[in-house]
């Protein structure tokens, strides 16, 4: 039994653009161990986003096997997929994707099953957002919004955080501090983290860097 949090076995994903077929994932083989911190880099169109969508169960592979925590996602019902996203996965997006009408605290509590706000406050405190519970996203800086988004990703204690260009909208100082937050989460809480990024400085924070190209791994952790 391996200890992979994410496991791709010959995964294909093809998009049709009119007549043209684009293989976003072309026989991807990859295993990421539980507790690892991985940065995924590569040019636009290399398949990074599709990789992250399949990893986050937002998209299904056309062919091949993808497992998260040992569970093969294509064998789950739509409802089970949603439950797995809620319980096991925390998403962080480039544009934060907070609900503009909700306060910071409400945004963090959104995926929660109960209405107990103490845990959400605790996580916001840890993100350095004491006293900003009732601020709406428009009243917060980009760095602060991304911290709220990280708090939201953490609220259900996921086993993995998937981040899509989390520093893409931030200046270098904020970008660095967000990466440090992720670093700490990985080291202190043992949460597995995958960050897709263009930014080499951000990528350096990770334990290892995978480069993608044409829907495959160019270098990195192969499954033999």
């Amino acid at each position, binding site marked *: 039994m391996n200890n992979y949090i994410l496991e791709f076995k010959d995964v294909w994903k093809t998009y049709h653009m009119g007549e043209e077929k684009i293989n976003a994932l072309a026989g991807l083989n990859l295993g990421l161990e539980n507790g690892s911190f991985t940065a995924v880099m590569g040019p636009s169109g290399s398949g990074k986003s599709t990789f992250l969508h399949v990893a986050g169960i937002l998209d299904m592979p056309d062919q091949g096997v993808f497992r998260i925590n040992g569970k093969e996602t294509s064998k789950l019902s739509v409802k089970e997929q949603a439950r797995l*996203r809620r319980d096991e996965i925390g998403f962080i997006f480039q544009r934060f994707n907070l609900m503009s*009408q909700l306060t910071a605290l409400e945004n963090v509590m959104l*995926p929660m099953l109960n209405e107990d706000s103490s845990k959400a406050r605790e996580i916001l405190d840890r993100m350095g957002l004491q006293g900003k519970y009732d601020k709406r996203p428009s009243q917060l800086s980009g760095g602060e919004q991304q911290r709220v988004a990280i708090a939201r990703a953490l609220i259900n204690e996921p086993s993995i955080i998937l981040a899509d260009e989390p520093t893409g909208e931030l200046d270098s100082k904020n970008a660095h501090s967000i990466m440090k937050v992720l670093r700490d989460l990985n080291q202190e809480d043992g949460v597995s983290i995958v960050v897709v990024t263009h930014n080499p400085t951000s990528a350096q924070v990770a334990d290892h860097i995978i480069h993608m190209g044409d829907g495959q791994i160019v270098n990195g952790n192969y499954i033999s």
Partner: protein
Amino acid sequence: MNLNKLAFNNIRRRKLRSILTMLGIIIGVATIVVLVGTTAGATTALKDETNEYMYDIIISPSVSSGSYMMDPETVSQVYKLSNIYDIKETSTFQEYIGTEIVTVVGTQDWKSVEIKKGSPGVVVDQSIADKGYGIGSKITIKDQELTVTGIVDADSTPVYVDQSVAKKIVDGKVSAISAQTKGDPKTVAQDVRKQVEGITVETKSQKVAEVQEMTNKSLLFAGIIASIALLVGIISVINTMLISVMERTKELGILKAIGFTNWEIKGSVLFESGLLGFIGSVLGVILGVLGSIAVANMLEFTEYLPMMTPWWLIIGSIVGATLLCVLAGLYPAMRASKLNVVEALRNE
């Protein structure tokens, strides 16, 4: 977090649009309450006015009996019949008051006697009152001395007395008995003719039946017209919810990405449209009741106001409009739950 909280938020966030959408429901429901309520009130009023015709059969002495009144034996036979109910009787006879011949009417229903002055008991026409029989004075009918208690507004020159008094004066004889029937009036009428001798039985006149039928039809017609008004409101709810879902494509994508199921998302859209319907219909009922009060005042109809705003109409309008709005949210909710997450997240 419960997604229903977001639904409240959405309605509050887009105040103008929510109000305009609800306005459709408000106008629709208010129209129903006023139109159906006024018609229901008018129907009750009409039934009250035509109360003396509100019988299924009327029993009177037959010509062959040789009398214009039924003797006490015949009357008690009628009262024993099992297939009639709500039995009313009157003993009516002629009497000289001074030199003038008047009709003395025994009544069991003082509500249908329009007393102008005084109170029920012994009520005379104005022309008789003018001849020295005003309120408080004595009047002698067939050796019985009675005290006049009121004055009636009538075309003919009657004296109204309580039926119990009238019946005693004529030794328990009765001129006519009206009653409701259990089952078809014609069948019951035939049955009564067979069982009791010396009487004629007539069923309610065709004309009265037609008038009653018409009031029922007008109630239905008012309902249909008002429902069209509500339908317009419901369509605006469908429209608003569709726009709302399309506008929130990205938001719904985020909700899916962080783990909400399709059912939860569908439920929140349905809840939101139902909420629009509920608030709209409550406001509509309030407006409708105010409208009914205004109509009642205009028609000098205020005593029928409770009949114009019955509970079945108020509760029915709110429950009905809310359910219809939930239905209106079905298609938008389906659109929302079928969104592709990856595409929705790309949406700006």
